[in-house]
C-alpha cells in the first residue's frame, strides 16, 4: 500500500479526464497495456504485477468490466513476499466471487497460510475466506479456523478475524460448526478479556443462536455478564471507550444475542439483566455532541428492543413508551426517526396502545417533517396504531397529506388510507366518502382494487345505495374529474341512479347527458363501462322515454363499428337487447350481492407487509377488527338465495352467446372468459351470471333460484364429493366442519343438516367409555328411504352403533345409540358414513364423529407441590416432548387458557413464575393406559404471539405424542374446510345446482324438524 508511482499517475490521469469518453479511452489504453504485460509474463516483476493488479481494481471500481488478469491476481497469493501476497489477497477478494473456479485453485495456498506460523499471512488468508469463502472453503478450513480462534498463543488480531471467518463458514455451511462440541467453547470465548475478540465472538454467537438457541443456552448468562461489565465500566480500556460510552457495539451485539433466546428463566440472571437495562433506560440523555448521542442511543434503542422482547413488567414498559414519546419530539432527526420506528414495533406489546395514542398529534406532526425518511416512519406508525377509536382522525389526516405528499409515497398512502377506512370505518357512508375523496385527490394512485371494493360494498348494502349514488352524482359536477372517478360514478349511477330520480338533476336523461359529456375525453377501457351505464339508464326509464332512447341508440349505433372489439360488441348487443323489452329488463337487472370474502386490499397489504415488524401490526389489526364493515351477508339469513334474473332469450341466440353478452354487460374489461372467471374482484362482477348461463344450466327447464355462491372458484375443497352423478344435490345448512369443531368442545348439538334431514348428537363420557345418541329427524312431509348409517372406526376406538331403520317417516325422528370405548391414545377420528334417498335423489355424507382425544380427558387441577415432582420425574423424550410451534393463531393468554380448559386440559394458575407461560394438567383414560396423568407447559413469546414452545409429558410415550399433536392442532389455525382431514366430508355449502323445491322460510320455521336442535 505504500505508494506506487504508476498507480498514482494513472489515477491522476483519470482525474484529469474532461469527460466520460476521455476516461473510457484512458482506461482502455491502460487495460490494453496491462493485457500485453501479462502476456509477456517472464519480464513481469512481482512489483509490476502488483501495480497492474491495483490498477485493475481501480478500474473495476470505476465501473468497467475487468475480465482478465484474475489468474494473475490469484497467483500473487502464493507469492513468498508480503507485499505481493497482500495485493493478491485484497484484489482477489474484490474481483472474484465465491463460485469462481480460480478460487478453488487457491484453497491449498490459503490453508497453508492459515496453518502456518506467520500471523500476518494468517490475517490475509482469514480476510479472504471471511469475505468470499464458499462451501468448499467451509469444508476444508473450518477446523483450522476454529483452532486459531480458541488458541491461547494467537494474538487478538488473528483471533478476532478467525471468529468472523468462522461465522462466514457457518453461514455457508451450518455443519462447519458442530453444535455439541462448540457450545462450551463458545461460552468460554465469551469470558475473553480483549474487547476486540469479544466483539467478534459475540457476532459469531448471534449467528449461532439465531439458528439454534437451545444449544447455546449456557451463553445466555455470559452475555448478561458482558453487559454488566460494560455498564459498570469495569475493565474497559480507553481505546474501546467511544465518546465516553464503553464499546457501544459490543453492548448492542450482546443485547441482540439475548433477543434470540425466547425467555430468561434463571431469576438471578433476569434480575441482573433488568438492572442493567434499567440503568441504560434511565441514564441516557440527549446531549450536544452528535457522536456521543448516537452512541448512547444506539445502546438505548437496543435496550428498548430487548425490553420489548422480554415483555418486562408493565412499569418498565410504560417507562419505555414514555421515553419513545420524548424521542419523537426531540430536535435530533435520527432519534426522532428511531423513536417512530420503535414505537411502531412497540405496538405489538399489549397494553401500551393507549399510551401511544396519547402521542397521536405529535406523530401527525411528523407526517409533515422535512425528512421523507421520518415521514415514512410516521405513516407506518399511524397505520399501525389506527383502530376504531381514532380511524376517522387518522384517515382524514392521511387524506389531507395526500395532496402534498411526494409522488413516490402517494400510492402507498392511498392504499393505506383505503385499508384503514375499510377496516375501521365507524359507518359505511363515511367509508364511501373516504374512497371517493381518495379517488378525487389521487386518482392516478388509486389501484383498481380500491374502486372495485367500494362497488362491492355499495352493492351489498342497500342502505348505502342512494347515498353513494348521490355522492357519485355530486362529483360529476366537478369540472375536471379523474377517469377512475368517472368509472365509479358511472357504475354506481347505472346501478342505483334510478333511486335518485326524484331529485333535481338526477333524471335518467340528465344523468345520461352529464356522463356523456365526459365520454369524448376518456380512454378506451372506460367506454364499455359508460355503455353499460347507458343501457342500464335506458332500462330504468319507466315508462320509456323516447327522447332518451333515441340518444342512447344513437350512441350504440355510433360504436357499432368501433375498432375496439369490446366496445363494438357491447354497442351491438345492447342495441339489440334494448329492443327486446322484458328480456332486456331481466338481463340488466340490478347486480346480485357479492359473496363475502376477505378484502383483496387487506390481503394485498398482508402480502406486502411480511417483514417481522409489520406482521406485528397485522396481528394487532386482526385482534381488534371493526364490525362496521363486514360485508352484508350474501344470503338472507333464512338461507334462501337472493333471486336472480335469468335471461330468457327467445329465438335465434344460443345460450353461450347470451352468456357472453350478459357477462360483458356487467364486466368492465374485455377478454375474461366467462367459464373460468379469474379470481380477482372482476370475477365477482362476472361470476354469478356467467355460471348461470353456462349451457347446461340454461337449457334445463328449472330456472329456480340459484345460489349467489355457486361460482366454481368459490367452492373450496369443502364441497361434499358427489358419489356419482345426480347425487347429493342438496344444499347443506351450516358448515359441517364448524359443527364438528364445535361438538369437539361440547357434548350436544347438530352434527349435520340439509333441507331434508337434521342429525343431532348428544354424548356422555365417563373415563374411557362414552355413550352417544344420534338423533335423525326427517324435516319433510314425505319419508326418507334407504337410510344407512355405517361407522368407519379408527383402530383405537371400539364403536357399536345400534341399527338404524331403513326408512324415516315424515316429520319423525329416530334415535340410535352409539357405544364408544377408547383403547389407546390416538387422534384419529371415527367417521359416520350416512346416506339416504329423497325421492330419486341419493344423498351421501361422511361425517366425523366427535369422539376425539379430549373427550377422554378429565379436568384435574394440581398444586405446585403435586405438579413439580411429577414434572421433574418425566425426564425427557419420549415421555416428555418439547416443540416450538409456529404459525399459532394469536391468542391472548386468558383466551388461550380458556381454550385449554375447554378441552379439559386444566390450567393451573400461578405455578409458573413467568406470567407468559401456562402450566396445565389433566387425566387421560383408555383401556391400555388406564387413568394417566398428563402435564403440559406452554411458553409464549409476547413479542410474537404466532409462536410458542410447548412441552407435554405423561407416563406413556404414545399418549405424550398424541396429546402434544392434539394441542398443537387446537392452537394452529386450521383453515376451515381443510381437505386433509376427511376428504369426503369436508364442510361448507355445496355448489348448488338448481334445487327442486327448497323449503320456504316460513315452512322451515314451522317445521318441527328445524326445532330438533333445540330439543336436543
Amino acid at each position: 500500500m505504500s505508494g506506487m508511482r504508476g498507480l498514482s499517475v494513472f489515477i491522476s490521469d483519470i482525474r484529469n479526464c474532461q469527460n466520460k469518453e476521455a476516461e473510457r479511452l484512458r482506461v482502455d489504453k491502460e487495460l490494453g497495456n496491462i493485457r500485453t504485460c501479462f502476456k509477456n509474463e517472464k519480464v513481469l516483476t512481482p512489483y509490476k504485477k502488483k501495480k497492474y493488479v491495483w490498477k485493475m481494481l481501480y478500474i473495476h471500481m470505476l465501473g468497467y468490466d475487468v475480465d482478465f488478469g484474475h489468474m494473475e491476481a490469484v497467483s500473487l497469493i502464493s507469492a513468498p513476499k508480503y507485499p505481493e501476497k497482500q495485493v493478491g489477497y485484497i484484489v482477489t477478494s474484490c474481483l472474484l466471487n465465491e463460485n469462481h473456479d480460480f478460487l478453488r485453485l487457491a484453497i491449498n495456498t490459503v490453508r497453508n497460510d492459515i496453518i502456518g506460523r506467520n500471523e500476518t499471512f494468517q490475517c490475509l488468508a482469514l480476510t479472504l475466506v471471511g469475505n468470499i469463502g464458499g462451501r468448499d472453503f467451509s469444508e476444508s478450513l473450518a477446523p483450522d479456523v476454529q483452532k486459531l480462534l480458541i488458541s491461547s498463543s494467537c494474538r487478538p488480531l488473528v483471533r478476532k478475524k478467525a471468529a468472523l471467518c468462522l461465522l462466514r463458514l457457518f453461514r455457508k455451511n451450518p455443519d462447519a460448526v458442530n453444535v455439541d462440541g462448540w457450545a462450551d467453547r463458545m461460552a468460554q470465548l465469551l469470558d475473553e478479556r480483549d474487547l476486540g475478540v469479544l466483539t467478534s465472538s459475540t457476532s459469531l454467537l448471534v449467528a449461532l443462536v439465531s439458528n439454534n438457541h437451545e444449544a447455546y443456552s449456557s451463553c445466555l448468562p455470559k452475555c448478561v455478564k458482558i453487559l454488566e461489565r460494560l455498564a459498570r465500566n469495569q475493565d474497559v480500556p480507553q481505546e474501546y471507550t467511544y465518546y465516553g460510552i464503553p464499546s457501544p457495539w459490543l453492548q448492542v451485539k450482546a443485547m441482540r444475542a439475548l433477543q434470540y433466546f425466547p425467555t430468561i428463566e434463571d431469576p438471578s440472571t433476569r434480575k441482573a439483566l433488568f438492572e442493567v437495562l434499567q440503568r441504560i433506560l434511565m441514564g441516557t440523555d440527549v446531549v450536544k455532541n452528535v457522536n456521543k448521542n448516537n452512541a448512547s442511543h444506539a445502546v438505548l434503542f437496543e435496550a428498548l428492543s430487548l425490553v420489548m422482547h422480554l415483555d418486562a413488567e408493565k412499569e418498565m414498559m410504560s417507562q419505555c413508551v414514555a421515553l419513545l414519546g420524548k424521542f419523537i419530539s426531540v430536535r435530533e432527526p435520527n432519534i426522532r426517526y428511531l423513536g417512530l420506528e420503535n414505537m411502531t414495533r412497540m405496538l405489538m406489546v399489549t397494553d401500551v396502545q393507549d399510551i401511544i395514542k396519547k402521542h397521536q398529534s405529535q406523530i401527525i406532526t411528523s407526517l409533515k417533517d422535512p425528512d421523507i425518511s421520518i415521514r415514512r416512519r410516521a405513516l407506518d406508525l399511524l397505520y399501525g396504531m389506527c383502530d376504531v377509536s381514532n380511524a376517522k382522525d387518522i384517515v382524514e389526516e392521511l387524506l389531507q397529506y395526500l395532496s402534498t405528499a411526494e409522488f413516490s409515497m402517494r400510492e402507498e398512502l392511498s392504499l393505506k388510507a383505503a385499508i384503514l377506512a375499510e377496516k375501521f370505518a365507524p359507518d359505511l357512508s363515511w367509508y364511501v366518502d373516504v374512497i371517493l375523496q381518495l379517488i378525487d385527490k389521487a386518482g392516478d394512485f388509486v389501484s383498481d382494487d380500491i374502486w372495485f371494493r367500494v362497488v362491492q360494498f355499495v352493492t351489498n348494502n342497500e342502505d348505502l345505495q342512494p347515498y353513494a349514488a348521490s355522492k357519485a352524482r355530486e362529483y360529476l359536477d366537478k369540472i375536471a374529474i379523474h377517469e377512475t372517478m368517472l368509472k365509479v360514478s358511472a357504475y354506481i349511477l347505472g346501478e342505483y341512479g334510478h333511486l335518485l330520480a326524484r331529485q333535481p338533476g338526477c333524471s335518467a336523461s340528465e344523468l345520461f347527458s352529464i356522463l356523456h359529456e365526459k365520454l369524448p375525453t376518456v380512454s378506451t377501457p372506460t367506454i364499455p363501462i359508460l355503455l353499460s351505464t347507458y343501457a342500464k339508464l335506458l332500462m330504468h326509464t319507466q315508462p320509456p322515454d323516447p327522447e332518451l332512447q333515441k340518444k342512447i341508440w344513437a350512441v350504440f349505433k355510433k360504436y357499432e363499428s368501433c375498432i375496439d372489439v369490446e366496445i363494438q360488441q357491447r354497442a351491438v348487443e345492447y342495441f339489440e337487447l334494448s329492443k327486446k323489452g322484458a328480456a332486456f329488463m331481466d338481463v340488466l337487472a340490478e347486480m346480485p350481492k357479492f359473496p363475502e370474502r376477505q378484502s383483496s386490499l387487506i390481503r394485498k397489504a398482508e402480502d406486502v407487509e411480511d417483514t417481522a415488524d409489520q406482521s406485528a401490526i397485522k396481528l394487532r389489526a386482526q385482534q381488534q377488527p371493526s364490525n362496521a364493515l363486514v360485508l352484508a351477508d350474501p344470503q338472507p339469513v333464512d338461507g334462501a338465495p337472493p333471486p336472480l334474473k335469468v335471461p330468457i332469450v327467445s329465438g335465434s341466440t344460443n345460450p353461450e352467446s347470451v352468456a357472453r353478452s350478459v357477462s360483458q354487460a356487467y364486466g368492465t374489461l374485455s377478454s375474461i372468459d366467462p367459464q373460468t372467471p379469474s379470481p380477482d374482484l372482476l370475477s365477482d362482477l362476472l361470476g354469478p351470471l356467467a355460471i348461470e348461463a353456462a349451457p347446461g344450466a340454461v337449457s334445463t327447464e328449472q330456472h329456480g333460484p340459484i345460489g349467489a355462491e355457486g361460482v366454481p372458484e368459490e367452492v373450496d375443497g369443502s364441497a361434499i364429493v358427489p358419489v356419482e352423478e345426480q347425487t347429493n344435490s342438496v344444499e347443506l345448512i351450516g358448515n359441517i366442519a364448524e359443527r364438528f369443531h364445535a361438538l369437539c368442545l361440547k357434548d350436544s348439538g347438530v352434527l349435520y343438516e340439509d333441507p331434508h334431514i337434521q342429525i343431532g348428537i348428544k354424548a356422555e363420557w365417563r373415563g374411557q367409555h362414552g355413550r352417544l345418541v344420534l338423533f335423525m329427524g326427517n324435516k319433510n312431509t314425505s319419508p326418507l328411504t334407504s337410510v344407512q348409517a355405517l361407522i368407519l372406526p379408527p383402530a383405537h376406538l371400539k364403536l357399536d352403533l345400534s341399527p338404524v331403520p331403513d326408512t324415516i317417516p315424515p316429520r319423525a325422528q329416530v334415535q340410535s345409540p352409539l357405544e364408544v370405548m377408547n383403547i389407546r391414545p390416538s387422534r384419529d377420528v371415527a367417521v359416520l358414513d350416512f346416506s339416504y334417498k329423497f325421492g330419486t335423489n341419493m344423498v351421501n355424507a361422511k361425517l366425523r364423529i366427535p369422539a376425539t382425544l379430549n373427550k377422554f380427558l378429565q379436568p384435574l387441577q394440581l398444586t405446585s407441590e403435586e405438579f413439580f415432582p411429577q414434572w421433574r420425574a418425566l425426564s425427557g423424550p419420549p415421555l416428555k416432548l418439547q416443540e416450538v410451534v409456529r404459525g399459532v393463531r394469536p391468542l391472548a393468554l386468558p383466551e388461550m387458557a380458556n381454550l385449554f380448559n375447554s378441552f379439559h386440559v386444566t390450567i393451573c394458575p400461578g405455578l409458573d413464575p413467568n406470567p407468559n407461560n401456562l402450566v396445565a394438567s389433566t387425566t387421560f383414560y383408555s383401556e391400555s393406559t388406564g387413568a394417566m396423568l398428563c402435564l403440559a407447559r406452554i411458553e409464549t413469546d409476547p413479542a410474537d404471539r404466532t409462536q410458542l414452545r410447548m412441552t407435554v409429558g405423561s407416563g406413556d410415550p404414545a399418549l405424550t405424542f398424541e396429546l402434544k399433536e392434539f394441542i398443537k392442532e387446537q392452537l394452529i389455525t386450521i383453515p376451515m374446510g381443510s381437505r386433509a382431514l376427511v376428504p369426503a366430508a369436508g364442510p361448507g355449502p355445496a355448489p348448488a345446482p338448481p334445487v327442486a323445491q327448497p323449503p320456504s322460510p316460513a315452512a322451515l320455521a314451522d317445521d318441527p324438524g328445524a326445532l330438533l336442535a333445540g330439543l336436543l
Partner: protein
Amino acid sequence: MIKAVMMMNTQGKPRLAKFYDYMPVEKQQELIRGVFSVLCSRPENVSNFLEIDSLFGPDSRLVYKHYATLYFVLVFDGSENELAMLDLIQVLVETLDKCFSNVCELDIVFNYSKMHAVLDEIVFGGQVLETSSAEVMKAVKEISKLEAASNSISLVPKSVSGWRGR
C-alpha cells in the same frame, strides 16, 4: 450483516466501494448511482437514515454521513443497529483522519490501496471487526512496516501535496 460500504464524492464519483455480497460490476454501478441520486437530493439537517428497499431489497437499511465533499455510506440488514452503524462510519472517518492527518478527498483518491487495508481492519466479511480506531491504526501501521521492509522500490512519499495543486 453489512451489505456494502461506499464512499463517493458529492458529484457521485465513487471513491471506494466494497460489496460483501457478490455483485456483478454493472449492478454495483447501478446501486452506487441509485444511492447517490437519493443522497444528493437530501437536504441538510435531516436524519442519516434512508429507505432503500427499492435498491437493495426488503429489510435493507442505509445510513450515511456527509463530510465536506464526501458521502460515507453503509448498507446493512435488519440484524444491525442503525445508530451503531452510524458510529462505525465515524470510527472509519476518525481512523482515516489519523492515517492521513486531516484526511481530505485527495488522500482517499490517491491512497486507494491503503483505504482498502483500513476498511478491511474495520469491516470483515460484512461484520464489524474492530471498533477501536487505535487498534485499527496499530494493525495498519504493522502492515505498512512489513511492506516497507520488503519493498525497496517505494517511491512516492505519503504527502500528496504535489497533486493537490491541480
